[in-house]
């Protein structure tokens, strides 16, 4: 890529081509539709020039040049087809085929092999060369991915995608000469599967997919992945009604064809034994009519006997916009209950309330790609690699390829911390002070755009006065950050013309989430993150459609479209208390598992046992379906249509790839039938619901943005704290039923710093009992320097660890004690 925008003129095969200086011959040829054969070329990585298939002749040069990595210059005359070039290309392919195994019939790439295509295209029909066969053994000990070196053409696409796009840097070239092969540092592997996706031959193979289907047998259904809120555009590839793999296409998708461990391997849950395939009453299969009849009659009975306030519902980001809309309508209209909520209560809802009131945002301020073009990126209390990998790839693009400065603020030494210019390893609880101090430093160094601030920020003087009152030295002490380092970070953010501010779960789920988000919104205003076309503010949520869920009004205080609702109603915490008091007698869970995902999950377990009616509409059997009176089997994202909203506000259509298994039904159909049964009215059609859930973007006007005056919270002084978050290999409670993801992380674990482990006498793999104010949980200890001394971390996907049973509501970081169990 060139910084220069000057245009140059050249001739390719006699045709005039004009292109920006810095472009390669291959790129120039592409613009006029001249096809030069390639094998190792992949647009999203730096050119490798390994295969030499793309040789062309350049007038004035004695030797052929490779089109993929030779820059076009003004006045160049290029020939792409000639007898000489044909001979070179043929010989090169012949060399590639020396000792290439003849196992195409059973090779996974058969039918989608670039080597086959190039052989065919270059008319390679003989083999004049011979060499002793190195016959390298197949590498089978890596989880999920098999490597067959004999089939490798060493194009290095996998190595470069792993390093340049993913930033994992796990793959490397080992050995010399003909013995060279692609090797892997397993500790660095993110198991994103992109090496498999970009492999032009059958060298890198997905073990779960191996021998499942021939490529041409697969039906491709373009849709989106809903395992996280970035919502990558994917294709569900199915055969005989089963999704067998997920792929994505380069160049035409927002994720540029890149996938993560969730997108590539996580679909395994779709075909899991745990799938719910028939409605159940008290664990026994029943017909849909029986089940729905029971649900509607019981809900009506409870409503009629006790009023709508005796009924409550919890939905989730696993439902579509339409489903969530109908869910709230079912409760508000058909059941007369405003007791409805979702897991967003503990995170994103709190965040969006702040962002909406200050910045008018209900999702990020700019599309994801604006991160990749920002001059500086701040990642604050978020591990994008785990929470929304597509955000990570944008950070990689910005930082690695576009010279963006990267500042990471997080209590954990996450992957991005190791890549950042500045890593601010703060103490949890100090976030508002830290963000405030950064904003203050930018202002005091004269790096804030005061003209823009006066135009757009209504209370600019109030904001500046607030920042003026922030004590930078005190913030450094509270957060445990060296002031010089903080100043350097402020300099990176303050001097950049565009800034992306990304924050996630460590911020949004914290006890001080409102204060932290407000402080980050202030920092976004001050650093110019809301100006221009690059950068922006990016809140990251863990569940796939949480943004759509909130837009649909699944909470007592907001109606669809974020309209305030004055009607009384219990939120998740109120619902729990209501059940405990016996006031709420019927609970409807739609894709929601409070026994694992909600704080005080132990209390939830006891509460659910007290209900007169527990209805669970979900796709997988779980501890919560085991307790349910009625279980309604729903459809997963690839099994239904509808729309979802990503963290950057895109409305993405889901397309149905396969039918839900057994008798399971799309969730909208279930909800519609119940709505009609309980209200006597027809449910709105999917198309109507789609219109109703269409977001209405706000354009910021003069003075419409607001600075906030958040309280400066302080960190706890406990010797040991526990931070609850996400495991990089799992997404919510669905991938815990995906065999591939379970191979990587079979159980919940507690991450502990080596110093703490030593102090507590804990060895890797020992059971560690962690006790907090509301309970204890035990899990396998995983010793790692990624967490600082004094901090434990655990993820909330697994019922076996069930870390949420020790978490109070509204907090993600608490003082704990830990002992070897």
């Amino acid at each position: 890529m060139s910084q220069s925008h000057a245009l140059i003129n050249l001739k390719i095969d006699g045709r005039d081509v004009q292109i920006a200086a810095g472009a390669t011959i291959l790129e120039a040829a592409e613009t006029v539709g001249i096809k030069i054969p390639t094998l190792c070329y992949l647009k999203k990585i730096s050119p490798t020039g390994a295969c030499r298939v793309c040789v062309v002749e350049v007038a004035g040069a004695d030797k052929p040049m490779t089109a993929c990595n030779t820059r076009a210059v003004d006045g160049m005359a290029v020939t792409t087809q000639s007898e000489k070039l044909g001979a070179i290309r043929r010989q090169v392919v012949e060399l590639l085929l020396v000792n290439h195994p003849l196992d195409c019939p059973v090779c996974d790439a058969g039918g989608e092999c670039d080597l086959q295509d190039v052989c065919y295209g270059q008319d390679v029909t003989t083999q004049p060369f011979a060499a002793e066969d190195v016959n390298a053994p197949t590498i089978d000990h890596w989880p999920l991915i098999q490597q067959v070196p004999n089939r490798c053409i060493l194009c290095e696409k996998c190595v470069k995608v792993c390093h340049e796009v993913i930033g994992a840097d796990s793959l490397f070239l080992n050995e010399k000469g003909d013995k060279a092969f692609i090797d892997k540092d397993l500790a660095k592997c993110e198991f994103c599967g992109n090496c498999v996706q970009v492999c032009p031959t059958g060298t890198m193979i997905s073990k779960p997919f191996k021998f499942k289907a021939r490529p041409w047998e697969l039906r491709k259904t373009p849709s989106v992945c809903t395992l996280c809120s970035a919502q990558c555009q994917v294709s569900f590839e199915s055969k005989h009604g089963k999704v067998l793999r997920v792929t994505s296409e380069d160049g035409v998708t927002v994720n540029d064809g890149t996938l993560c461990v969730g997108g590539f391997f996580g679909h395994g849950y779709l075909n899991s034994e745990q799938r719910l395939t028939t409605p159940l009453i008290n664990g026994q299969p029943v017909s849909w009519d029986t089940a729905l009849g029971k649900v509607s009659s019981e809900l009506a009975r409870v409503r009629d006997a006790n009023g709508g306030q005796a009924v409550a519902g919890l939905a989730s980001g696993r439902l579509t916009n339409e489903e969530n809309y109908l869910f709230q309508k079912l409760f508000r209209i058909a059941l007369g209950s405003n007791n409805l909520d979702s897991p967003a209560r503990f995170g994103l809802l709190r965040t969006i309330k702040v962002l909406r009131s200050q910045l008018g945002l209900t999702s990020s301020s700019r599309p994801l790609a604006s991160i990749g073009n920002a001059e500086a990126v701040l990642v604050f209390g978020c591990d994008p690699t785990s929470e929304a990998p597509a955000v990570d790839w944008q950070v990689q693009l910005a930082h690695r390829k576009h010279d963006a400065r990267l500042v990471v603020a997080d209590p954990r030494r996450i992957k991005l911390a190791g890549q950042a210019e500045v890593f601010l390893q703060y103490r949890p609880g100090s976030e508002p002070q830290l963000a405030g101090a950064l904003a203050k430093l930018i202002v005091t160094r004269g790096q804030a755009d005061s003209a823009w601030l006066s135009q757009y920020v209504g209370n600019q003087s109030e904001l500046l006065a607030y920042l003026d009152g922030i004590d930078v030295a005190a913030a450094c002490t509270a957060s445990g950050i060296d002031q010089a380092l903080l100043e350097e970070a402020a300099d990176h953010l303050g001097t950049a013309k565009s800034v992306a501010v990304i924050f996630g779960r460590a911020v949004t789920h914290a006890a001080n989430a409102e204060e932290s988000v407000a402080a980050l919104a202030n920092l976004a205003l001050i650093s110019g993150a809301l100006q221009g076309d690059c950068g922006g503010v990016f809140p990251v949520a863990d569940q796939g459609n949480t943004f759509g869920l909130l837009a649909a009004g699944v909470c007592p205080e907001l109606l669809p479209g974020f309209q305030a609702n004055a009607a009384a109603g219990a939120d998740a915490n109120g619902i729990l208390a209501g059940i405990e008091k016996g006031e709420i007698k019927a609970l409807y869970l739609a894709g929601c598992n409070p026994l694992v995902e909600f704080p005080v999950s132990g209390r939830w377990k006891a509460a659910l046992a007290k209900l007169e009616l527990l209805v669970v509409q979900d796709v997988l059997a779980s501890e919560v379906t085991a307790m349910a009176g009625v279980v309604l089997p729903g459809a997963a994202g690839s099994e239904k249509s509808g729309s979802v909203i990503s963290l950057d506000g895109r409305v993405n259509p889901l397309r149905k790839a396969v039918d839900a298994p057994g008798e399971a039904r799309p969730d909208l159909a279930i909800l519609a039938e119940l709505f009609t049964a309980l209200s006597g009215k027809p449910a709105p059609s999917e198309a109507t619901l789609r219109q109703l859930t269409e977001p209405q973007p706000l354009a910021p006007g003069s003075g419409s943005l607001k600075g906030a005056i958040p309280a400066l919270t302080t960190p706890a002084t406990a010797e040991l704290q526990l931070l609850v978050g996400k495991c990089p290999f799992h997404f919510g409670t669905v991938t815990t039923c995906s065999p591939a993801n379970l191979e990587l992380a079979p159980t919940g674990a507690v991450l502990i710093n080596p110093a703490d482990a030593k102090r507590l006498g804990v060895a890797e793999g020992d059971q560690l009992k962690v006790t907090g104010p509301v309970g204890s949980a035990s899990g396998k200890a995983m010793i790692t320097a990624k967490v600082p001394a004094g901090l434990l971390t655990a993820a909330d996907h697994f019922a076996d660890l069930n870390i949420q049973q020790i978490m109070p509501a509204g907090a993600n970081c608490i003082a704990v004690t830990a002992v070897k169990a």
Partner: protein
Amino acid sequence: MADVVFSSWGGKVVDNRQGGEPQPAVFKLPENYLGEGRISAFMGWDGIILYDREVDVVAMAAEYMKRVQEKYCCAKCTPGKRGTRVMMDTLARIVAGQGKERDLDTLTDLADLLENCKCTLCMTAARPILDSVKYFRSDYLAFMRGERTIRPAKGYHDKVTAPCTDRCPAHIDIPAYIEEIKEYRFDEALGTIRRNMPIPAVCGRVCPHPCEKSCRRALVDEPISIMVLKRVPADHEWMHHQQPPMQPKAPTGKKIMVVGAGPAGLTCAFYLALEGHQVKIIDMLSEPGGTVAVGIPDYRMPRQLLQREADIVAALGVEIEYGVKLGRDVTLAQLKEQYDAVFLGTGAFKSKPMGVEGEDQGYEGFSTGGIHYLRAVALGEPIETPKRVIVVGGGNTAIDCVRVALREGAEESILLYRRTRKEMPAEPYEVDDAEEEGVKFMFLALPTKLITENNKIVGVEVLKMELGEPDASGRRSPQPIPGSEYIIPCDLVIPAIGQDPDLDYLDQGDYGIKKTRWNSIVTNGGTMMTDNAGVFAGGDCEYGAMTVVVAVGHGRRAARTIHRYLTEGRVYLDEADAMEDIINGLGAFDKTENVGIAGGLHREHQPKIQGAERTQNYEEIELAMPESQAVREAERCLRCYRVGMLAVNG
């Protein structure tokens, strides 16, 4: 040197196999390889050189290709990876007596195809094979007919190099680190540099980069910006607050004293510490870097970065004590007694005299030398720079003096040089920078007399010169124009003619260490050891005032030989050292080569602070090159690797 029996080196065929009047061909190859024996043949990127007709060229070709494929082929392109493998197997079959005549066609075809390789390693490795098939076909046929069996040489020794690597006195694997930059692997690039050079932040800024004079890309369009690309990964580590990954080996219990914390001393200490030795450095100054610290102003080489490089060396367990001068505070005899080995890296801190009337009179306003002026400014010593300053000389030190004088408040800063701008040894860009800052140049001007009033300088008498015929160095020597004397008024004269080592400490005892007639230390045979066993020397004190990178090369070589001295009790060059020197003698760059590829690309330049305002401070002028720009520059590199192998016979 023995007569050449056959040579195809450089495409020029000399064939004396049929006897008769031998055709001459002279190569800078030594007659013997270490103590092993006579060098009988050399095979490499540019052909074959044969000194002994008994050498089995076919066997040598087979061995050469085997080493290329198994030891050096990076496997990063198809023709290289598979082509050399097919060639290796084909040659192996031939020497095993199983070859067929058509195998020779395969070798020829592949040699052609290898011209399409990604880099020149395998490409040039095919050339001697092609020559062997062409000029020793009957030998091949003899193998095929079963008339011959393999006669390997007593020993083969090989080396991979590149023109830039060979030319670099520190022999950094330049193509490797450039490739790593191209692949956005800045940490790996720095690791590669540190294998040969522990002070990349310095040599990425102020190295005279001889490597760029041997860059093949220059034969196509413009040389690669090798020096700046060395700075990029160093900046990357520094700007990312990364800790260098090096870890010393287990302690050996051996103690080494390094005298001088300049480039040679730091380098020597770095590599010795990595081997697990206990190293102490003493330095007469109050900070690390030697001439780099006090002779190169901060706007070119910020001292906090020099300090960081020294901190990295110290972090390996090296103790550095400042303010201790050899000869003043401690004697060499004492060091010899207390340490298992001593490395002298004492630099060249004595200014050369200008040779003008009155310079030894101690006039006020006459500086003892450019290096002293720069040092006094750098160390913040109380010296005053008056309004009108004249600096005499044409090298980097002279340029630094005129530019520093401006920053120190001089209103007029004039450089006097007896030749023209073209002949100035200073880097052209620095001359341009000085001019941009307001320095005045007076060329073809020879100072002849200091003009004084009351023992104080008030001016310099200057004689006008004109350029005559080129001298031995190729530069046109200046001739005075009789009667052209004139006087330039000034308040301070700084001679910056050059520096010599100050070796007074060698006269304090009977050490048996020889000095050259330029007053530098004599070391032996590339081992860097003096005639006093256990005492080694390198850098300016060994070579005379030279470059940072020469000092680094010396420091590293000395560390290697000191390690052998301490662990094996013997000082010698190993295969890597010996082959490095042999190939360096032969030369790996052919400036007449037709590279034959499409070019037309300009080299990238790092951003810099422009304009005369920069004379207001000592802030660094050349700014860090953005990494995307560095990648673009790295993409221009042609990776000119080449493998040479020699045969030794008894």
